[in-house]
């Protein structure tokens, strides 16, 4: 990747001749992430030359699940993450549904989809405002890139009539943590979303309304109407967030084209898909069919080419490496549910044993393991989700969302602001800003996926299909299950083995396990490390040491959540 330091070649600027100082920037602890992360980057002053991302903590959720009643994995394992506990609970439920061979009724699946899409709204919105936006706030931009700040002060924001910020500088003021308008408006907006989640889950985080195969909320008209009024009350926020990030990103690309390559890496993604159709059935044999019916589709893309859209293949080629992580591996079993053999390192065939040690970048340096797909380094972010959605030709017919092949058109209904079609287009490259843009449009996508399913819920109510649960039949002999699902951030999977109604092995891989992974067996960096390495240093030097803002922007674009990642 070559960088064109356009701003530096601007002769009118005297400070351009000063070269930023190279060296090591130690972002440990890294702030504004989920859980504990430490990132160390090396720079030569114009670009990042090396990077190591270290998961800094570990609780042992895979071990905590062992020997428990199979049904209890839902409330136990979902508590690994306080941001997306509902997604972990759903993933655990899917693993159990496969193991128990149960088929939840349509209303249960519908409620799960609504609750899960709503949880994704919360994760995207909170991430953008609380974690990512401060990297672009006025004081940071003015301090680290005075020339960019000067441009921002005179740059009109094209979306002012939607988001209310007259200039880009106003918008950057709004991004100030704790006091900025974007920050302080997101908290109440997010609270409304938390209310919506609590209507289905009773509690958020950590849903209390759960049992295998169902969201056990007692449904009434009030559930749907109270949900619906809040969803409608949220649509203007969605329009504003899309417009706000579009304006910021357009300005940054225009003002300094090095932003194009900030955090760039190949378009290689893995997604398990999520948000089931109410009529779907989740079985090992039927994974592909189930995946196709999901609103957010599964698939693997390597270097921009779609390798597969079959959920079974997404699953079959996953391996997990611990060569640079604080674990030992114990191998057990080499077969899947059907008795077919699995590749070495597949999560169904092994367990990780914690082995705490000093951080050593040549050896082990992270509590995060390194999952790969068919040997490829793959990321899982909202960007991949939207990309796989835009390019599918089988998006279910509906009133709000259209996949055009190169974009997703989302109709966001009227509230105080008029009905708006927001359109997310496949970007030319995978970089830090495009990840954030996908987060913003991800709010609209998730919100309208919830709306689509809400209409199906009304339909089920009309036809009287109100059944929410079916009796459990817990197998007494050996059993296996895998839950393949997504959190707001991306891929999430739980592998379960049980015997005599008890858990004998439990393995978890989440989006952040993939994204924040350390080097693998072949020494290849994880996606976040890869995105950091060769990324430009845009920060202008004033003779001080670098603050590391460029690295922070890349790291936050992945919304790393080490709770999920290290578990």
């Amino acid at each position, binding site marked *: 990747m070559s960088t064109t330091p356009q701003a530096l070649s601007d002769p009118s600027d005297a400070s351009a001749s000063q070269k930023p100082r190279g060296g090591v920037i130690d972002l440990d*602890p890294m*702030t504004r992430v989920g859980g504990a992360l430490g990132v160390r980057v090396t720079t030569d002053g114009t670009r990042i030359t090396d990077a190591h991302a270290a998961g800094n903590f570990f609780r042992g959720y895979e071990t905590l699940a062992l020997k428990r009643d199979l049904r*209890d994995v839902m409330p136990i394992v979902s508590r*690994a993450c306080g941001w997306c506990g509902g997604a972990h609970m759903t993933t655990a439920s899917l693993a159990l549904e496969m193991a128990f061979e149960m088929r939840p009724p349509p209303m249960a699946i519908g409620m799960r989809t609504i609750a899960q899409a709503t949880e994704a709204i919360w994760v995207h919105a909170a991430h953008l405002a609380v974690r990512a936006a401060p990297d672009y706030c006025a004081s940071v931009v003015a301090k680290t890139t005075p020339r960019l700040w000067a441009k921002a002060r005179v740059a009109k924001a094209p979306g002012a009539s939607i988001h209310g910020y007259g200039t880009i500088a106003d918008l950057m003021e709004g991004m100030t943590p704790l006091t900025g308008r974007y920050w302080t408006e997101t908290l109440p907006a997010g609270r409304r979303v938390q209310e919506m989640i609590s209507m289905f889950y*009773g509690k*958020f985080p950590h849903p209390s309304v759960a049992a295998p195969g169902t969201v*056990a909320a007692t449904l009434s008209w009030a559930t749907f109407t109270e949900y619906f009024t809040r969803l409608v009350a949220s649509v203007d926020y969605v329009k504003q967030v899309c417009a706000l990030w579009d304006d910021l990103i357009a300005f940054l690309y225009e003002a300094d084209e090095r932003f194009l390559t900030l955090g760039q890496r190949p378009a290689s993604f893995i997604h398990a898909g999520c948000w089931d159709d109410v009529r779907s059935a989740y079985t090992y044999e039927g994974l592909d069919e189930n995946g196709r019916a999901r609103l957010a589709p599964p698939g693997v893309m390597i270097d921009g080419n779609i390798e597969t859209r079959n959920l079974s293949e997404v699953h079959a080629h996953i391996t997990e490496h611990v060569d640079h992580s604080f674990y030992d591996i114990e191998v057990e079993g080499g077969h899947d549910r059907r008795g077919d053999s699995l590749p070495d390192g597949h999560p169904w065939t092994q367990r990780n044993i914690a082995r705490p040690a000093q951080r050593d970048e040549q050896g082990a340096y992270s509590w995060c393991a390194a999952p790969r797909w068919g040997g490829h380094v793959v990321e899982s972010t909202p960007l991949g989700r939207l990309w796989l959605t835009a390019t599918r030709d089988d998006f279910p017919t509906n009133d709000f969302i259209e996949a055009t092949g190169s974009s997703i058109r989302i109709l966001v209904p009227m509230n105080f602001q008029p009905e708006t079609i927001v359109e997310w287009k496949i970007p030319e490259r995978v970089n830090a800003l495009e990840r954030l843009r996908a987060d913003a449009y991800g709010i609209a996508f998730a919100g309208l996926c919830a709306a689509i399913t809400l209409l199906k819920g009304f339909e089920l109510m009309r036809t009287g299909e109100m059944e929410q649960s079916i009796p459990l039949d817990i197998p007494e002999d050996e059993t296996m299950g895998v839950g393949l699902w997504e959190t707001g951030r991306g891929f999430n999977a739980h592998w379960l083995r049980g015997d005599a109604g008890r858990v004998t092995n439990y393995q978890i891989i989440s989006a952040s396990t993939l994204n924040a992974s350390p080097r693998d067996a072949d020494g290849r960096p994880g996606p976040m490390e890869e995105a950091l390495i060769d990324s430009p240093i845009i920060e202008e030097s004033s003779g001080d040491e670098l*603050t*590391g803002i460029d690295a922070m922007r890349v790291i936050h674009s992945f919304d790393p959540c080490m709770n999920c990642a290290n578990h």
Partner: protein
Amino acid sequence: MADTAGSRPSYDPQDPFAPTAVRSMLQIPSPAEAGLRMGPIEKIYLIWLAGGSCDGCTVAVVAATQPPVEKLIAGLVPGLPRVELIHPGVALEAGAAFTENLAMAERGELDAPYLIVWEGSVFENDSSGEGAFYRLGQDRDGRTTSSTEWLSRLAPNAAAVVAIGSCAAWGGIPAAQGNVTGSIGVMDFLERDYRSALGVPVVNIPGCSPVGDNFMETAAGVLLFLQGMGPLPEFDELGRPVWIFGETVHRRCPRGGYYEEGIFAEAYGEKECLVELGCWGPVVQCNISERGMVNGIGGCMNIGGICIGCTMPGFPDKFAPFYAVPPGTLVSATTSRVFGGFTRRMREVTQQDKNITGRWEGKDKPSGWARFQSRPTKSAKLVHKLYRAYQNTKIGN
């Protein structure tokens, strides 16, 4: 940002990446904020640290509205000091600049008192400079520090230590069967004799996750007390706020009426009492059935979830397997089925009577919605007569 051994780093308070505490010292209260000042304390630092956490308590506190966090940190809650939040989840600064906040607190360099709020279990054996289950920055000599060590270093001079969530309070899930990290609760870690600088033992706000407002309300209560305005909040023998955790969740459960009348849900999603699906509510100290989860919305059994005892020191192992019926239920539920069943039938009879005005007597139907006037049976009529007679006697009044 690198820190050279021995030297004290210097930070520019105008630098957005300087430690929060350094920047805070320059901050002049806004006129709105100054106008709301009422007590002796203008500002307090809230240092939020974590061990075996999931961030869920943080997420729960974001949902709180009594008061909302954005008002508290802006100093806009009348009577309360401005809360200067030092939280890795929101801090602008990273790396050494973030840990410098902690070092300043330890060296006594903050310009206001500090509270510690701890989320997650404490990894008891995590020692700095070695492999640790939670690494949190480095000391000036480059030695890796663990979050456990920071708790040891900061607790003695903290105004108070608040353990938020069941993991911090009791150990919670990381400390349950399968605990490979040496997880324990804060109270156990700091030991029984621990007193904060203000003489308070560890305050516990349990729950997995807790209700955000339970934390906010307690924090606001303590701050109001320190301002010389509110009474000293009352805590029980386990350091829990009494007004929050003094009652069982069953006593204020919206399904309590079903329990009393002996009607129980048989499947998830049904509207009746959940005890036979495994609800532990009758013995669990929690207020979620009354307060809800977010802004009064949600709550476990309010929505349909059994109580799995997530606020209790015995959580999770003493409540697992969660989906089995609690043993005591056999006795209590059978009793309420028998007596409640009788009471319910009597109530149905009375309710029917009260659904008819005197003017409708003798009409064939009361409204366009009804197909016929429901008429009390002979025995019901007799019951009503007796009941009315009783209502009008002295004893009845």
